[in-house]
């Protein structure tokens, strides 16, 4: 009986095909891509292959004849594969603004948490998810002209230095976590089982800045500053007329934006309650 096969993952009009050679490889792909549903009536634009062989198992990632990874770490393979896929989804996308951001929703209101790597957006998204917010992504959204958030939903990816801070949130389900030297990937359903796939309208923008040892500070910022900061997180500017600047300006004019500096979770609930926890 053959255990190999093909998995199709889709996002915003594009499908990507991933081949696998056995149930272990299929399990890894499911872990990473189970929220990316195949786009109907679309052929896959690119194919990758994930192979798991030997005992102890070695894993490898391929694009055609090109080996992208070979080694012991499933986490590293998953990290490389999802970044390859994100590049494919963004590179020619012209219909929406691609923003490097986490996103969550509450009662169909979308909360955007934009930031560069290391800003603390994944940690904040994980914590908010554990507090009952609906997790959408910790990495990438497409944002339409009318403010609809289309999230690329994947496991929450945390750097090594954020892991201890979130240890208590993960609880006894540690066997569901994919760990590696770079950090860990946590299925969002471990933090909140009530996940509802959705595309909410943008309601708040929260720019995080993690500073070890800092308390908590929340400041409302102007539309101009919000637009300026959002430009730094705009991933497909070269595909858009005027680099999408006019669209970003229009969206930030009608959305309340905040700068959150935090060094832990103490006091975070009380600080964020007035702007995010209206009903919680």
């Amino acid at each position: 009986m053959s255990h190999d096969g093909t998995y199709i993952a889709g996002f915003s009009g594009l499908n990507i095909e991933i081949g696998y050679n056995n149930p272990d490889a299929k399990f890894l792909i499911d872990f990473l891509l189970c929220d990316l549903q195949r786009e109907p009536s679309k052929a896959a634009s690119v194919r990758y292959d994930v192979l798991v062989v030997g005992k102890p198992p070695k894993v490898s990632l391929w694009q055609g004849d090109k080996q992208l990874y070979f080694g012991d770490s499933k986490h590293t393979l998953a990290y490389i594969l999802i970044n390859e896929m994100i590049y494919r989804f963004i590179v020619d996308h012209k219909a929406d603004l691609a923003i490097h951001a986490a996103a969550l929703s509450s009662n169909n209101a979308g909360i955007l948490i934009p930031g560069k790597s290391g800003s603390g957006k994944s940690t904040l998204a994980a914590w908010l998810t554990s507090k009952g917010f609906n997790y959408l992504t910790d990495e990438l959204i497409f944002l339409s002209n009318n403010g609809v958030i289309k999230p690329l939903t994947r496991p929450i990816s945390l750097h090594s230095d954020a892991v201890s801070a979130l240890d208590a949130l993960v609880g006894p389900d540690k066997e569901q976590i994919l760990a590696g030297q770079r950090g860990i990937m946590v299925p969002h359903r471990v933090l909140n089982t009530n996940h509802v796939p959705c595309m909410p309208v943008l309601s708040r923008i929260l720019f995080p800045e993690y500073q070890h040892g800092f308390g908590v500070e929340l400041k409302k910022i102007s539309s101009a500053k919000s637009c300026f900061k959002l430009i730094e997180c705009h991933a497909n500017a070269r595909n858009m007329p005027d680099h999408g600047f006019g669209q970003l300006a229009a969206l930030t004019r009608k959305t309340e934006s905040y700068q959150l500096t935090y060094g832990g979770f103490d006091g975070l609930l009380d600080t964020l309650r007035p702007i995010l926890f209206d009903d919680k």
Partner: protein
Amino acid sequence: MKIYDSQIPALNPEFKLEQFDNEILLYSVAGTTAVYLNETGYLVWCLCSENRMIGKIITLLEEAYPEKRQYIRDDVISVINSLAENNVIVLNNES
């Protein structure tokens, strides 16, 4: 960067302006550069558009805001420096 009163700033035409109430964003249509200006920065940027020497820009602002005279030179030099570093303006050589 050393700034001289006799230098004349010229605006880089690649930058477009987006106004948000009292604040301004300038962005480059050729690249992805954006520059944030507060009210003071915007005023200096406007005064750079009319072929004036920096010394003249400082004098104009000192006459318009005599109560802030002691801060104006440093503020203008700071804004000019920032605009030049971000390529929003080009400064001619000191003459």
